[in-house]
């Protein structure tokens, strides 16, 4: 069972192993390779077959939980010791600190919105962008255009006992999920995408490997919410019969046999340190 650690606490060996596995998945030419994960996210941001799976809906959290599990398994096929690290942006708030160091994610874009120039993903020879809304073949960042969410804001979101609420979309006001996703203030998830900028702000955001560290942190915060309010299936909403969204026991495409109910309790698959 994997233990997901904060990026700031990884050893140099753990950082190197994570980077190497990500690059091997990128180099894979068939099957569910890195670019499959990028295009899958692009597809599922919008509704598929009239259902909102990945964003602007209750299944935002369980869909991404499964997405991270699939990505982590893909990395572990290359190196069984690898787990996805998380970026706790309430603590690591600098464009030069963890995880944006030369031995992990690399730093800001050149000139504030250009290609990343440091670290293992700098330049198209090291990390070539192929599926994107912009023509840059090099990873780009434009960091710090807004303010990262604070620990106090996280605490306020985790204090909301209702998982989600009608109308179960980006205009829901009274549940935890839309605040976590960020269409409702205080906006946790969306803010960090915007703060990194460049590819992280685009529909093809998984092109920036820090996507996984950010979503790992979002998943960790959901796990903290579950620790406080319950991992049991009664804590997920809606339970059944809701058009256009994924109810508790409905399948989350593109995976087979995976529902919100099957991923709620992750503690036998991975834990957070």
């Amino acid at each position, binding site marked *: 069972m994997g233990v997901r650690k904060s990026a700031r606490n990884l050893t140099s060996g753990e950082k190197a192993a994570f980077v190497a596995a990500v690059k091997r998945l990128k180099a894979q030419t068939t099957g569910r390779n890195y670019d499959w994960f990028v295009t899958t996210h692009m597809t599922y941001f919008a509704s598929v077959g009239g259902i909102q799976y990945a964003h602007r809906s209750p299944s935002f959290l369980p869909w991404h939980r499964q997405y991270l599990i699939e990505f982590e398994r893909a990395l572990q096929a290359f190196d069984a010791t690898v787990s996805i690290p998380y970026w706790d942006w309430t603590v690591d708030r600098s464009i030069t600190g963890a995880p944006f160091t030369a031995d992990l994610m690399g730093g800001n874009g050149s000139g504030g919105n250009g290609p990343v120039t440091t670290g293992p993903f700098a330049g198209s020879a090291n990390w070539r962008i192929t*599926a*994107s809304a912009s023509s840059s073949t090099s990873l780009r960042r*434009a960091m710090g255009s807004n303010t990262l969410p604070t620990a106090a804001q996280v605490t306020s979101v985790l204090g909301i006992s209702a998982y989600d609420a009608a109308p179960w979309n980006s*205009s829901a006001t009274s549940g935890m999920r839309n605040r976590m996703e960020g*269409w409702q203030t205080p906006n946790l998830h969306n803010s960090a995408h915007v703060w990194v900028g460049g590819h992280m*702000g*685009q529909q093809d*955001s998984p092109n920036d490997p820090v996507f996984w560290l950010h979503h790992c942190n979002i998943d960790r915060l959901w796990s903290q919410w579950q620790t406080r309010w319950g991992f049991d299936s009664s804590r997920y909403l809606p339970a059944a019969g809701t058009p256009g969204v994924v109810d508790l026991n409905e399948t989350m495409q593109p995976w087979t046999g995976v529902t919100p109910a099957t991923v709620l309790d992750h503690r036998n698959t991975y834990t957070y340190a």
Partner: protein
Amino acid sequence: MSTVSRRDALRYGAAAAAVVAGVAGAQVLATPAAARDPRDFEMEYRGKKIKGTHPVTGVAALSARGQRPNRSHEVYINGRKLSVMEIELPAAGGGVTIGYISAINHYEPVLIDADRNSNGLLKLTKRAVDVLGDTELTALAGAGHDHVR
């Protein structure tokens, strides 16, 4: 805002603008070519040609009889399409307002209406140009999203 919601303002904004414009409004009724929203733009920004059109609604849509009305916001940067997607958001005073994201600014909605946010589409477009810098949009940027409404 008064009793008119942002959504209504968005939907009827073009019609209201045509009525307020008086004589200009009559021209809107007379010629399809004038079925153009006053918020539409075509200009150069940071070395890129940008063009944006708003949905044709109300009186203006009627004047464009025989043509397929433009039902969504359209943006082009250097002639390449940037897909714009509607996002329902909690409104400041309760209820729902509509924000817009693009393939380039995917996590930061911009409000567009005929009132205080009448420059919303231009703002969205300029933000995309700021991100693009010396790069261009690809075909993926113009690929249509499903619309939830």
